[in-house]
């Protein structure tokens, strides 16, 4: 069987995710009901340079943390299904609003490409975007495109390809919190790392525990039931490490 690489599209509502998804996949798509949720999510397929890709159009959200069905689905997909690349689609005319989600995704995975979509509209409004500075600050590729005019898409495909081959490696920015929070993060991160051994991003788990994200704890217990390392019955450990700080 030929290897198929996985890509997820994340972003705020109305940033052109579905337009880009349709552009990449054409008619090769299907709608699925995922994990018993009522939220629809589309998967589609395309090939580039002899490589096959499955791409998933995640629900558009402003956040991945407030636990609506849409947000949980998008979050669970990125954290548990681990797409090889997550493309965060931003509206180039509204970066102040859009950057929040980009930073949330960068806390979950470093395998990210940031796409500035609606560049045609940004150009029209005289909005200048220095993607090189953004790239340096975020530590991941930033590509300007217009899904409507189909510009920049070749550059995006080329970047996807070079990320898969390992030619491009990323160094995602770490959001640093105040001193007290950082101390707690370090404590929890170490415990989370021991429990999950690379299967979940430890710093992110630590942040979610500090936030008291009960829904995430339940999801982890469900997915890792009985499969956590010796001595750590998942149930006891995950719910108690949060309390021990």
């Amino acid at each position, binding site marked *: 069987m030929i290897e198929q690489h996985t890509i997820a599209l994340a972003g705020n509502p109305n940033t052109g995710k579905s337009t880009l998804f349709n552009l990449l996949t054409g008619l090769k798509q299907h709608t699925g009901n995922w994990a018993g949720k009522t939220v629809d999510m589309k998967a589609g397929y395309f090939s580039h340079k002899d490589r096959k890709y499955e791409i998933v159009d995640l629900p558009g959200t402003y956040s991945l943390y407030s636990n609506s069905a849409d947000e949980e689905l998008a979050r669970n997909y990125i954290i548990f299904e681990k797409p090889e690349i997550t493309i965060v689609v931003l509206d180039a005319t509204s970066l102040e*609003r859009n950057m929040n989600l980009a930073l949330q995704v960068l806390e979950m995975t470093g395998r990210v490409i940031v796409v500035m979509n609606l560049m045609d509209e940004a150009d029209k409004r005289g909005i200048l975007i220095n993607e090189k500075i953004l790239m340096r600050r975020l530590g991941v590729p930033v590509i300007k495109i217009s899904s409507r005019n189909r510009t920049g898409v070749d550059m995006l495909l080329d970047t996807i390809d070079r990320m898969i081959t390992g030619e491009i490696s990323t160094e995602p920015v770490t959001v640093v919190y105040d001193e007290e929070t950082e101390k707690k993060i370090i404590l929890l991160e170490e415990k989370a790392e021991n429990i999950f051994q690379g299967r979940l991003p430890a710093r992110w788990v630590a942040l979610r525990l500090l936030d008291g994200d009960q829904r995430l704890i339940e999801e982890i217990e469900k997915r890792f039931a009985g499969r956590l390392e010796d001595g750590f019955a998942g149930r006891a450990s995950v719910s108690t490490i949060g309390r021990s700080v």
Partner: protein
Amino acid sequence: MGMAKTISLADGEKGDRIRISKLHIEGVMRRRLLDLGFVPGRIVEVLRKSPLGDPIAFRVSQTCIALRKEESGQIEGELVDS
């Protein structure tokens, strides 16, 4: 220049521009409000108020977002001269 007037977002009138200073709310709801753009330092504008004052629509970072009074009443800010 006088002192800026501090009000709750729920008391804003149509057309008011308010610079958010504090959210008196914790947990998931606080998170949601921050993610919607109700962040300290940011200026929001009151777009529409329904007759009973609930909900109120605000312009936040170029997007219109409506909040119930129990949410907007927990957000404090300073009126900005326009």
